[in-house]
């Protein structure tokens, strides 16, 4: 098993214009994507958005109607699954119940005709890397969920694949184990410098693991960028909503100011040069400043509902035109504002994004 710097160079993955229909609906609607060598890219989106279909196309289980898949410039789209060097960790792990851990992990090496001695060495390395060396003789039925996942991971990396594909790898694990495994996976992937693609519907997971995130919806990629970019500057309504942006208000643009009814935010990036007169103003709950009613520059509102969120309090506030927004602030020593309390709200321009889509 080689670590970074001693031979496993990350491969570049290029997907170009992939199209795949199931019946009349497009599951993949002309997707183009480039994964830099050694990077971990997450395909993030709700169920049915096409992310798993896209991954299965890269693995070779789905043949696209149009488009290309290239590894380091070499097209692999015509190759059957067994001739591609894309190791996949299935959502259900796909461990062979009739083989023990060693048998499972060594399967890919057997298929490639690796001689026994070298096989044993590489299996040993992979088991050590995934911290399950002591489970070598056990059968999958005797392992816990977390252990099974490590076996599936070891099985995938032992073949030194060009691309590592992980389909909702942490879905079956409970919360504490999930976070632990996410860190471990990331460290492992970085040390191997293997290019990896992860499918998930969990935005926190995506933010945590990725070098780059591709947010997908209805077969198309709506945004592709670094986690901070996707988080701070969502490109579309869908991405904003999916990334947990709580407030998406229809607004009109005049003189470089965004006016969402009584709430006016000046100086939002892009307001001045926007071609159209209307847009969606997007901002998170924690970007809302709750001040005393009537304070200068704030829009009048009153409290509708409040709930404790541990270290923060979440308020539902109604503006003068009866639209509601969500605001969260850290819990100070003072009392939680009760429903009906009049307040003033202000939103920082830097925390807002204007969306046209």
């Amino acid at each position: 098993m080689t670590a970074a710097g001693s031979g496993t160079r990350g491969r570049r993955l290029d997907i170009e214009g992939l199209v795949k229909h199931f019946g009349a609906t497009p599951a993949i609607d002309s997707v183009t994507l480039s994964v830099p060598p050694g990077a971990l890219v997450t395909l993030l989106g709700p169920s049915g958005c096409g992310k798993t279909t896209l991954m299965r196309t890269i693995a070779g289980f789905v043949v696209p109607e149009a488009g290309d898949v290239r590894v380091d410039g070499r097209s692999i789209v015509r190759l059957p699954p067994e001739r591609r060097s894309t190791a996949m960790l299935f959502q259900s792990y796909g461990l062979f119940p009739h083989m023990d851990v060693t048998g499972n992990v060594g399967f890919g090496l057997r298929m490639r005709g690796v001689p026994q001695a070298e096989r044993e060495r590489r299996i040993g390395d992979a088991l050590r890397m995934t911290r399950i060396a002591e489970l070598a003789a056990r059968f999958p039925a005797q392992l816990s969920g977390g252990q099974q996942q490590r076996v599936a991971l070891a099985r995938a990396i032992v073949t030194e694949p060009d691309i590592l594909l992980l389909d909702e790898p942490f879905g079956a694990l409970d919360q504490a184990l999930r976070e632990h495994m996410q860190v471990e996976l990331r460290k492992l992937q970085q040390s191997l410098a293997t290019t990896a693609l992860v499918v998930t519907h969990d935005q926190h997971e995506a933010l945590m693991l990725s070098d780059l995130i591709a947010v997908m919806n209805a077969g198309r990629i709506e945004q592709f960028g670094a986690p901070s970019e996707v988080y701070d500057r969502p490109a579309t309504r869908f991405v904003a909503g999916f990334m947990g942006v709580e407030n998406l208000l229809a607004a009109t643009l005049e003189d470089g100011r965004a006016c969402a009814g009584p709430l006016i935010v000046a100086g939002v990036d892009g307001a001045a040069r926007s071609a159209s007169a209307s847009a969606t103003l997007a901002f998170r709950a924690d970007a809302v400043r709750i001040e005393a009613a009537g304070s200068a520059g704030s829009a009048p509102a009153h409290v509708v509902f409040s709930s404790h969120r541990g270290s923060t309090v979440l308020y539902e506030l109604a503006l003068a035109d009866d639209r509601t927004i969500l605001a969260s602030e850290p819990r100070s020593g003072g009392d939680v504002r009760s429903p009906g309390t009049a307040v003033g709200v202000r939103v920082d321009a830097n925390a807002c994004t204007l969306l046209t889509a």
Partner: protein
Amino acid sequence: MSIRAAPPYSAAVALCAWLVMLFVLLPVAFIALYAFNDTAYLALPPRGLTLHWFANFFANTRFRDALLSSLVIAFAVTPAALLVALPAAIALVRYRFPGRELVNVALMSPLVVPGVVVGISFLSLAAALGLGLGTSTLIVAMTCLAFPFALRALVANLHGLDPALEDAARNLGATRLRAFALVTLPQLKPGVLAGGIFVFVEAIDNFSTAVFLTNSRTTTLPVEAFSYIRDFDDPTVAAMAVLLMAFSAVLVLAIDRLVGLDRLLDLH
């Protein structure tokens, strides 16, 4: 969900499967053709079509009596087997009691005993009790022989049902019996249908047991057909076969409409 580029088997394997299926369906198709054939021996292509053999079948008094007997037996055995199997299935699936495994095996045991042994057993019983052979003996023997079919189908069906639903019904005021009748029983349609049909077919079609329990006065359709085949060489039995097959086709279509073949066969 696995929409794939191609199925995991090659075209050669697919061809094998098709050929086997052809082999399965060949006699069925052929017998239909033979029954309408103009001549007593098979000529292909058929020179003419006729319903003569069907008329022959119904004109034959022995066949008519046998048909009547078989139907009487089947229509008696099927509800009997279901009535016996249903409470037993409930006991086996919904209750825990010592000896449950043993009882399960015991109740399924008639399936394992060769038909001739069952035939001789009941022959011995009838002889020992001084009872003559007749429709009643056949009905009793068939019920004993066939009720495991019904039991197996009902057990499989019950396994898939949520017992909490009956509890919910009782919580809402239904007695145990009403809860069963209104909640569980309607969901047992597949099991009752599957079990009922297999019992019915076994009762009509059984040969190896029936042949020991028939005599000149009482006979069943298969036994009668067997002796006719021995003596005559014409398609009358083919006509009978076509009638039986048409009947089963109707049954299969009805099951599919009511319950769906797929679901039914999960119970097989």
